[in-house]
């Protein structure tokens, strides 16, 4: 790739390299495997890849077989309900933390990220321990509610899936809304107030339009995650199947890549439609925000508001952290099958240095390197699509987001099939392939975060720099990057946190040298060693908590800062 000559003689080749390399990377590791998957969707069931096999059989099944139709319906119900509920919980909570004087804000923000990064197969098991038919919490609640003639239903089924996913994904809305509320230009609101506008009027005409892009981005994240999640429906769903369940069956049960691809394509089309609607909604708005100076946001001081806000945040936070609390308790015991955990022990922790040292190194190393590279790749591509607006930007956008929509298994299988030992690039069993697939799967985080920052950033700052004679690469480096840096950092933290617990890709790619902590957790869960699995999870949670807490304290890099506007 380095012998590629710049097109224009004597010109600076930097921009070319800067954009050419990420594009080359994307072509090889994203577009090709995706194209492969797309073609497979139109082939007869099975795993053979041949253009003679073209057929619509896969799609016909989806729209004729009852189980597919019901899964499609369930996926829609889950996706929409989880998004709406997350907005209903996350937006008020974001407002409370950003605009009401309540204690422990940084703590709330740091704890708020934890539900998202819990491996979903562990989260779902914890919910069963708490709210299953024999659940501890359910028993306690029923005992209290019993005299009133009320009964808490068990967690199984569609309702349970929606509840569990909302509790897992609302932090996206909460964190992004908090960032937006905290950063919306106070001068605008102040001027409106000076002119005599009511609070409600300001909210409707100034505040909400300003935070709309953030809410759009957050809803999209929630929707995509909700309709792509496999772990929660697999464990809580009972017979409530969703599209990812069926994909899992097609791949793991039948090795029917083509059938799986058809379902995946339907999944991507649904998400693509939502993505398109979100983009249209956001791009219709015009933003005034130019200044990069920050002004103090006015906070509600009235006592009633403060008490209400504190209680609301506390309840939501504690409820959503129940699985984490369960895991912490569980990590000191050997089992928890009855109402209470049994067999207190410290062994789950004491054995970690000896048994998991290498795994922790791998997890940290792989996640750090992948995060660093993802940050570069994601911001560059976001800059290209948002500012340079090349032809086909929409396709690029779709392609970047696709690995986020597709279940991890589909992406990994596409990558392995495309590259394993084919002689062009040797990747099998190495750190490299894991890092590459992490990058492909997580670039959307940084990408989205930076795109959101860019849409809120008036191009006139950049234009000014250009008019003053700066080369656009100079402009990018000295004007755009500093302004979108919070977006890059927050995207990176999210990337890193979620990579630390990545399972579905790693399990297909890991080798003896590259075993990670989540693999160890998974195998402990499979052997019924929930105590050991919990102790390992607690350490991962602690690492993420410390990182987010520090970054929240350092101010500039707060997780929600990705959407700062002022």
């Amino acid at each position, binding site marked *: 790739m380095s012998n590629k000559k710049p097109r224009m003689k004597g010109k600076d080749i930097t921009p070319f390299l800067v954009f050419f390399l990420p594009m080359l990377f994307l072509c090889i590791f994203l577009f090709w495997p995706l194209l492969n998957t797309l073609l497979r969707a139109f082939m007869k069931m099975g795993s053979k890849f041949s253009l003679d096999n073209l057929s619509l059989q896969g799609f016909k099944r989806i729209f004729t077989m009852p189980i597919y139709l019901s899964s499609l319906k369930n996926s829609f119900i889950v996706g929409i309900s989880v998004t709406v509920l997350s907005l209903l919980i996350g937006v008020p909570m974001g407002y409370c933390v950003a605009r009401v004087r309540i204690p422990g804000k940084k703590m709330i923000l740091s704890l708020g990220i934890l539900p998202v990064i819990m491996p979903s197969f562990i989260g779902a098991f914890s919910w069963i321990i708490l709210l299953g038919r*024999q659940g501890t919490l359910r028993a306690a609640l029923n005992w209290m509610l019993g005299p009133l003639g009320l009964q808490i239903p068990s967690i199984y089924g569609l309702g349970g899936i929606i509840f569990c996913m909302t509790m897992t994904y609302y932090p996206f809305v909460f964190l992004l809304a908090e960032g937006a509320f905290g950063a919306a230009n106070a001068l605008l609101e102040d001027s409106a107030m000076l002119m005599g506008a009511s609070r409600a009027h300001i909210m409707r005409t100034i505040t909400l339009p300003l935070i709309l892009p953030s809410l759009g981005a957050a809803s999209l994240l929630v929707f995509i995650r909700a309709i792509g999640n496999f772990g929660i429906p697999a464990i809580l769903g009972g017979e409530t199947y969703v599209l990812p369940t069926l994909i899992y069956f097609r791949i793991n049960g039948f090795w029917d890549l083509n059938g799986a691809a058809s379902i995946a394509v339907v999944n991507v089309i649904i998400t693509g439609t939502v993505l398109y609607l979100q983009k249209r909604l956001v791009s219709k708005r015009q933003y005034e925000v130019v200044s990069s100076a920050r002004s103090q946001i006015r906070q509600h001081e009235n006592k009633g508001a403060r008490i209400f806000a504190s209680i609301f945040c506390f309840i939501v936070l504690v409820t959503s952290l129940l699985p984490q609390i369960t895991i912490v308790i569980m990590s000191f015991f050997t089992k928890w099958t009855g109402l209470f955990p049994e067999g207190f022990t410290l062994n789950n922790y004491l054995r970690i240095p000896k048994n998991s040292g290498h795994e922790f190194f791998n997890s940290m190393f792989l996640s750090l390197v992948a995060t660093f590279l993802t940050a570069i790749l994601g911001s560059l591509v976001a800059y290209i699509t948002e500012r340079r607006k090349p032809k086909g930007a929409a396709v690029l956008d779709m392609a970047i987001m696709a690995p986020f929509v597709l279940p991890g298994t589909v992406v990994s299988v596409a990558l392995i099939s495309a590259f394993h030992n084919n002689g062009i690039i040797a990747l099998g069993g190495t750190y490299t392939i894991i890092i590459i697939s992490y990058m492909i799967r997580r670039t959307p985080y940084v990408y989205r975060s930076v795109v959101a920052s860019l849409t809120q950033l008036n191009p006139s700052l950049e234009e000014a720099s250009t008019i003053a004679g700066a080369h656009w690469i100079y402009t990018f480096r000295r004007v755009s990057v500093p302004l979108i840096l919070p977006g890059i950092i927050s995207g990176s933290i999210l990337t890193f946190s979620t990579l630390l617990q990545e399972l579905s890709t790693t*399990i297909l790619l890991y080798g003896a040298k590259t075993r990670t902590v989540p693999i160890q957790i998974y195998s402990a869960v499979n052997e019924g060693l929930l105590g050991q699995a919990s102790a390992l999870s607690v350490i991962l949670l602690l690492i993420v908590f410390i990182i987010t807490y520090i970054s929240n304290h350092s101010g500039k890099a707060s997780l929600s800062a990705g959407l700062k506007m002022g």
Partner: protein
Amino acid sequence: MKKLSIALLIAMVSMSLFAQGAAEAKSEELAATNEIVIWSAASEEETAALVAKFNELHPEIKTTIITAGSNELKTRLMAEQPKPSGDILMGIAKETYDEFYDYFTPYRTANHDSIAETVRDKGDTPRYYGYSMPLQCFIVNTKIFPEGTGPTSWKDLADPKYKGEIIMANPALSGSAYAQLYMMYSLFGEEFCKQVAKNTVYVASSKTVPESVARGEYGIGVTGEANVATYIEAGDPVTYRYPTEGTGARFDASAIIANCKNFKSAQLYMDFLTSYDAYKIINEVKNRRVVINELPGPKHLPALGEINLFDYNAVEAAELRNDLSDKFSNWIL
């Protein structure tokens, strides 16, 4: 200058990535002769015990273990064709080997004669040998169904009084989950399976089945007997029931993966894996039923002689799999 250095930095980072990949791959190929990579669906503890013993016999062979669920290993096997990075696949339902027969290499182990034909691939140079015998049986929660109550036969599973109490893994999930459906189908036919489907909750995670019954979330599950023993050992209120009509004689197997890198070491490993010593380890570490008669049945579970077995027609089962699973998915709605 600064611009150029940024460009160079980016170029170097991306180049080093590829370079690292190439270097790692190269060193692996050179040292291939005295290595072996084992893909194991058995537990880590059990696999490690087996490998430790193997290394006593062959200290010169550097052994690498990859443990994962059988579904993940199967997916790896398929995705990595035609040059798999593993040499041995062990501890997966025999149906998998039948289904993907071409992905395994025939090899007659040194202990060939001591393994009965019923628990290996038929023929003189089999592609797979039996590893353990995880018979499918019922796991019953004794708090919900004390002694003398609850189902004792496949037929009972269709009894409406058990509606909502039965949990099974979806047959689309794995070989053993499908085997449960096929056993009922071969015994009583399609109509019967429809009735069972109405009574039963079919889940997308096979791990959930014994776990749920042990916790008392459901009263009855159908699962591998080793799972029942695990929860009995842990002191949970569960017991086993072997259906009175019998359970299919199925087994888990091991084989050499076709086109593997370390064929020689793989042969030595298969010789070891079919030896008495290896079966003893499998039998003792995780308390499993093995395929040779010299060893006792697993702790907490009945001896083979006390269990009613019937011949499991793996060929017909495989032929019907797509069709039956599709039909089945309509019955559960």
